[in-house]
Each structure stands twice: as structure tokens, then as C-alpha cells.
């Protein structure tokens, strides 16, 4: 079966836009977490977020789109444009066989809430006729297609916090099935809107005692962790069949070597205690990559920093990786990026590629005192200089979903 390769990466994240800035921030352990500014922090117990503070849509699109499009679609367009530039794909590409597969959890929820507010405050006559086309998740992929002239399959998928990982894994499958030669894949999320933020706050999944110390708030695997910090942004990868990439002389960054996805079919909020299906997702990913756990150089953990996730994930990794879990270094980029839900898996894949190219593995910040129930080989505090040839990335999500990706470095 054809290998599927990553030939370009673009990202808009709380620690930088574009791979140069993103890589430097990852390497230097920069935190993207700060005071909540996109909505009134007053009513909430958690008053911090990982916002993209410097985002200027006009760098990436015309004023019309900058005014009208939901922020989540703007993130995807921006990251997609950067990814295409990175891959040098547009020139000479057969765009009838290039498509889009973007993951998102909440999609344009902020836009939908805003339209609802307009309706309640100003009445039906002020409802925007674009709303039927903009207030659904599909707008993210279709706007990318329209902006870039991509005429193959154009899809948005929504599987909560595994969305970005699923989009990359299923993108590989679509290319291997011969439905497209190239795809923009990844995730986009812009969930920081008053009502959804309030709901997350009430869910009790966000830290409450770090409002004065935002950079210390996301602390996966640490004893004093209190939860996830809501984040936003997008990461888009250009995937191509190896033949297509070779034919156009593309630069190979990495291969999407394997993918596994399962569901506990158990709960909207919790993974099943046994972790059986999460283990199975990791095993499926390794199996489809044709590698054993002993070959891994690095694990990019889901690592949300919630009380529940981190020990659960530790048990899953120890079971799925066996002896290799005593050796393979693990970190959670969410300590730097916050948790951007459906974009998280894609941002973490981008972070792995950055580490493969830059000779380092990103750190878990704030891991000062590891929880004994999270006894993995952690990369604490600072990035580790190392060569990553083979990496595993895990994602778990609402609906008790599990997904895992295996990425392999390519030299040439």
C-alpha cells in the first residue's frame, strides 16, 4: 500500500503562528497560557485560557472573509495557507485530486451563539442569510477548498478531542484508497466563547487556583494538576501519496505510518476504567505502522492535566507499550498549548514534526512533582535534545473515543 507522507505544515497556535515561531517556542518551553480576554472572566472560577493573541486574519484572507467568517474557519484558512506554502504544493498540482479533511469539536459555535444573540436582541430582520452556510462544521473545510481551489473530497469531521488525530489518520486512509493524491488535514478550534467557556467551567475540568499564575496552570502528570486549559487555533498538514510527492519533487518531512481509532461506547465524559479500548487504539496504530513499541523514540501524550485523564493514560501506555514504557520519553504539549479540543491532535502532530526536524522533543511544563500514578519517563520542564525517528501520539475525547497516530521521520 502506498506510503502517505507529510510535505508541509502550517499552524496558528497560542505559542506562535507558522512553523518557525512554533518550533522555537516549543523548544524553549514557552507557555501560551494567559488571562482570559475573549470573554468576561468575571463569572468564572477559571479565568485563564490559551488564546491566539496575535492573530491577524488580514494576513491570510481578504477583508470580506476577515469580517464575515467564523474565527474557527479563519484559523483553518490561515494554517492551510501556511501549510500549502510550506509544501510548495499549488504550483503544478492537479487540484481535482487534492482535498480537505479538517477535524473540529465545537466548529463555528461562537458564530452560532453570536447569531442567536443578534436574533434575540435585534430580531429576524438582522439575521444574516449566510448563517445557514456558516453555522455548521462543514464551513471549515469548504472555506479552505474555496480559498485554495481544492476540488477533491472536502470534509469536516467532528469527533471531539480526537478530531485532529482522526483527520490525519483518515486522511492517510483516503489517500491510500486512491480517492485523492493530496489532502489538507488537521484540526481547527475556536471554543472560547462566553457560554461554552461557562459550561466547561461548570464541568469542573479547568483549573481554579492558578488564575494569578496562568503559565503554571497546565501541569499534566503533576500531583498539583487541576485540569485542562481551554485553547484555540489550528494546525494543518499537507498529506500526499509518496508517488505524488516524489513526482513533484516535494520535500518529505515525515510519514503518517499508522493510525488506530476505537470507542469505549461507554460515556460522554469518561473513558472506561479498564482502558481496554484505548490500549486497542494504540495497538492498532502500531500494528498498521508495522512496528513494535520498542521502536518508538517518543510519545506525545494526550496529557490534558485533568485528575482523571493522566493516570488513565499512564495505565494505557504502560499496558500498550509494555517494557518500552520504562524507556520511551513522554511529554504533553498541552502544558504549552492548552487544550484546543479538536485541533489538539493536529497541533501535537505538528509539534512532533517540529521535533523530528529540529532534533528535540518538547517538554511537559510544570511537571515539578510527578504523580506516582503517572509513572512514565517524563520530559519535564525543558525540551530534550534527541533524534525522533518514530513517534506515537495519543488522543482521547468526549464520547469515550480513543485515537492514536504513528509518525515516522523521513530523510529525503
Amino acid at each position, binding site marked *: 500500500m502506498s506510503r502517505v507522507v507529510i510535505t508541509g505544515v502550517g499552524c496558528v497556535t497560542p505559542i506562535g503562528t507558522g512553523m518557525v515561531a512554533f518550533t522555537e517556542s516549543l523548544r524553549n518551553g514557552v507557555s501560551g497560557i494567559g488571562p482570559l480576554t475573549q470573554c468576561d472572566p468575571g463569572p468564572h472560577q477559571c479565568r485563564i485560557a490559551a488564546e491566539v493573541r496575535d492573530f491577524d486574519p488580514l494576513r491570510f484572507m481578504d477583508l*470580506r472573509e476577515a*469580517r*464575515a467568517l467564523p474565527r474557527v474557519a479563519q484559523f483553518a484558512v490561515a494554517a492551510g495557507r501556511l501549510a500549502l506554502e510550506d509544501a510548495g504544493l499549488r504550483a503544478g498540482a492537479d487540484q481535482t485530486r487534492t482535498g480537505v479533511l479538517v477535524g473540529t469539536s465545537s466548529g463555528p459555535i461562537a458564530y452560532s451563539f453570536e447569531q442567536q444573540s443578534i436574533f434575540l436582541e435585534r430580531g429576524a*430582520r*438582522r439575521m*444574516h*442569510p*449566510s448563517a445557514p452556510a456558516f453555522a455548521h462544521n462543514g464551513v471549515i473545510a469548504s472555506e479552505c477548498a474555496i480559498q485554495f481551489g481544492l476540488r477533491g473530497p472536502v470534509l469536516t469531521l467532528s469527533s471531539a478531542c480526537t478530531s485532529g488525530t482522526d483527520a490525519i489518520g483518515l486522511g492517510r486512509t483516503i489517500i491510500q484508497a486512491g480517492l485523492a493524491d493530496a489532502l489538507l488535514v488537521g484540526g481547527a478550534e475556536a471554543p472560547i466563547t462566553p457560554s461554552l467557556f461557562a459550561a466547561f467551567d461548570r464541568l469542573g475540568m479547568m483549573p481554579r487556583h492558578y488564575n494569578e499564575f496562568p503559565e503554571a496552570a497546565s501541569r499534566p502528570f503533576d500531583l498539583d494538576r487541576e485540569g485542562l486549559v481551554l485553547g484555540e487555533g489550528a494546525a494543518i498538514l499537507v498529506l500526499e501519496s509518496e508517488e505524488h510527492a516524489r513526482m513533484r519533487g516535494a520535500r518529505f518531512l515525515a510519514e503518517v505510518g499508522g493510525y488506530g481509532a476505537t470507542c469505549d461506547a461507554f460515556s460522554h465524559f469518561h473513558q472506561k476504567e479498564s482502558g481496554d479500548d484505548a490500549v486497542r487504539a494504540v495497538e492498532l496504530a502500531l500494528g498498521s505502522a508495522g512496528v513494535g513499541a520498542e521502536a518508538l523514540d517518543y510519545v506525545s501524550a494526550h496529557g490534558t492535566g485533568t485528575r482523571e485523564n493522566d493516570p488513565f493514560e499512564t495505565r494505557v501506555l504502560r499496558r500498550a507499550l509494555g517494557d518500552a514504557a520504562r524507556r520511551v520519553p513522554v511529554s504533553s504539549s498541552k502544558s504549552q498549548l492548552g487544550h484546543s479540543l479538536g485541533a489538539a491532535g493536529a497541533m501535537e502532530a505538528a509539534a512532533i514534526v517540529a521535533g523530528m526536524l529540529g532534533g528535540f522533543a518538547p517538554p511537559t511544563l510544570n511537571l515539578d512533582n510527578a504523580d506516582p500514578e503517572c509513572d512514565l519517563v517524563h520530559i519535564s520542564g525543558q525540551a530534550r535534545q534527541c533524534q525522533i525517528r518514530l513517534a506515537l501520539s495519543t488522543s482521547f475525547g468526549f464520547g469515550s473515543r480513543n485515537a492514536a497516530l504513528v509518525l515516522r521521520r523521513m530523510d529525503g
Partner: protein
Amino acid sequence: MKTQESVDPTDVVVRALATELKASEEEIRAARSLKTDLNMDSIAAVNVAFMIEDEYDVEIDIDENDKFDSVEAIVAIVRRVLEAR
């Protein structure tokens, strides 16, 4: 500025049209029919109307879409709305 009586809305109208239709202000001013010459559809017309509404804090009657087809026609509508308030 916004509340003065003798406002000339032409610049605001042209700017809104240029943004929405991705055309230069010269092209906007030169168009005899925005629908025919610059492919303005009904959604674009609503976007333009909303931009003008935001600028002047007024309501533009979208039912007059049939006349909403040139800078002059739109400026006339806006003038009427501004004078009526």
C-alpha cells in the same frame, strides 16, 4: 459625523461595496449594474446593507433589493433613511 444631517454616504457605500465584492473603488464607481458587472448576489447585498447599517446605526430596507444595484441607487436609499430619522 454620523449624526449630522447633511451626510454624504457615497464614500461609505463605495467602501462597503469594494470590500464585499472584492473590487477596486474605481470599479465600483464605474459599474452600471453591480449585479451584472460585479456579480453582486442577494447575500452580498445584505452584507453591504449590514455594513452601512453598522456605520450609521440605521436600518436599510432590504426589500428594496431590486433597486440595490448601483452606487447611486444605494446612496439614494441611505440618504432617505438618514433624512427620515
